[in-house]
């Protein structure tokens, strides 16, 4: 204990504080993670026990997962979601990167104005363009196909363009100049220098879009009518509606379907966890 005010507390106090922090954090962890464990458990219970809140089911009923298969073409939906997700994420990553490089490397007339326009579209709610865009796809005859779920991604998305541009701006200009002197074309600058150096950012954009696409309910609701074309969230909504909310209360089947819709993303997250979390942190700093 030295002078008052700035006295470093005796050893016990920080340890106690540290322990208290951990207790609060563990409680929060329980709040975040336990519902997922509850979901796994509920999906394995018989109908009468779904609400009993036991973590270990009294009776394990694997047949829920068989019945889910009969409730809808779940495997098909999963595949559809994977296809749409990969198309959406790939398209948006490539197109946004191209556009972002255009705005980052070149100096041209109206650049500021155009980039301002890019940014301002971020504030535009999707609802404003939703109906006319539907009419466009309808006119082309692509309603009730999966193309409208990813087609727009071919043209880049404002937020990703902004994000990737920030990363491209971080590449030292001398690298580009040197490559130019060595006879590298503009597309070469993009592909051989900008892209490899910003790979983490590209991964982030890809994962973000994959996650958004995997979770999206509204577009599949608008564009898909044939159950075989449904994505997983759309199919899940249908199972919930017809098996649980219709008055039959087969929540065990709805929960099995919910687990099936959730698990792939959790597994993907397990693999790319570091990448994703660090990416969010850096991308926010760029923003």
């Amino acid at each position, binding site marked *: 204990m030295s002078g008052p005010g700035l006295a470093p507390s005796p050893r016990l106090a920080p340890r106690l*504080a540290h322990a208290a*922090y*951990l207790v609060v*954090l563990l409680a*929060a962890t329980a709040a*975040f*993670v336990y*519902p*997922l464990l509850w979901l796994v458990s*509920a999906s394995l219970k018989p109908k009468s026990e779904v*609400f*009993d*809140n036991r973590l270990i089911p009294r009776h394990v009923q694997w047949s829920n997962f068989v019945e889910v298969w009969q409730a809808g073409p779940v495997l098909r939906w999963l595949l559809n979601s994977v296809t749409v997700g990969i198309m959406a994420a790939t398209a948006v990553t490539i*197109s946004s990167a*191209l*556009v972002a*490089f*255009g705005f980052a*490397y*070149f*100096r*041209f007339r109206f*650049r500021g104005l155009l980039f301002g326009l*890019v940014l301002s*579209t971020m*504030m*535009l709610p*999707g*609802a*404003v*363009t939703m*109906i*006319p865009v539907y009419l*466009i796809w309808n006119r082309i005859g692509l309603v009730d196909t999966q193309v409208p779920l990813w087609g727009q991604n071919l*043209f880049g998305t404002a937020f990703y363009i902004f994000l990737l541009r920030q990363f491209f701006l971080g590449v030292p200009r001398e690298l580009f100049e040197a490559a130019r002197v060595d006879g590298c074309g*503009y597309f070469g600058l*993009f592909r051989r220098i900008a892209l490899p150096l910003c790979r983490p950012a590209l991964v982030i954009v890809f994962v973000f879009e994959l996650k958004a696409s995997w*979770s*999206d309910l*509204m577009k599949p*609701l*608008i564009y898909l009518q044939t159950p075989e074309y449904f994505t*997983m*969230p759309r199919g*899940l*909504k249908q199972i*919930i*509606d017809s098996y649980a*909310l219709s008055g039959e209360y087969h929540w065990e089947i*709805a*929960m099995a379907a*919910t687990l099936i*819709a*959730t698990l792939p993303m959790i597994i993907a*997250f397990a693999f790319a*966890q570091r990448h994703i979390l660090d990416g*969010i*942190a850096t991308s*926010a*700093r760029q923003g």
Partner: protein
Amino acid sequence: MGELLAPRESLGEAHGRSRASLPLPGRLAARGGRRGQSNQARETRAAWMFIAPWVVGFLVFTAGPMLASLVLSFTDYSLVGQTRGVGADNYRQLLEDPRVAQSLLNTFVYAALFVPVGTCVALGLAMLLARVGRASGFFRTAFYLPEMTPAVAAAALFLLLLNGQTGLVNTVLGWFGIDGPNWTTDPNWLKPSLAMVSLWSMGGTIVIYLAAIKNVPRQLYEAAQLDGAGPVRRFFHVTLPMISGAVFFTVITNTIAALQMFDQAYTMFYGPQQKATASDESLVFMVYLFQNAFQYFKMGYASAMAWLLFVIILLITLVQLRVGNRFVHYEGDQR
């Protein structure tokens, strides 16, 4: 793209060379030009090629549809049958439609619950995370996990967890002697239920705050401590100003997202089976807009609703920017 660019570039090259036949002063100018002006033209052309996807997309999927939507909002367009111009009738109807007022109110209440509570909870957890050293990696992962859950799945799950009689949430509340409400059926508790689903999946915000807090220079804390600032004052006078940019960013994006919330409300309370029983207390604006556009096919009216939403989001964001700029501390180069 590469094949597309290459001939363009050689075209530019040829263009530059053709000037070599000019008389001397012109040739000199052309030489200078090859490095300066024509290079500039080539660069501009390449730049436009790179941004072409966005330009096309903007015209076809943003500017055009915006215009179309504006026009539609003055008609009674309904996908089939005849379309008439109805002047400002749709907008007049917006003012009179009780479900518009109700759904707007619901949306505001939901946003007013979710955004402030979410921001505070996320800040608190991020502050704690910053203090537990290496363990923060584990917690960070755990907190983010629910965000990977599709919104439909999270909503379905919470429909059960929030069950009034036997749900897990009320069971836990019961341990503390609290008699939990009928979250999913009591009209007064529908919006808090929706906010709770969103709170569960807001790990991204925590991750952002944690990164911002870790970025605050140590010396600032040391200086504050030397000046006799306790933990509370250090939080309000060092941490909060230094991370205000991140907080501001998430508040704006979370607000915009909250005003457009759809998936959770639609999954929990709407669908073919529920139309009859659905209470308007859970009707958020986007759900009502979606119903008008794609279930009742009142596309003109729905377009007017969309423009109303746009104006509201614009106003709220502008107010937030105005207020935010007074409080947000930007460091040197970040403007």
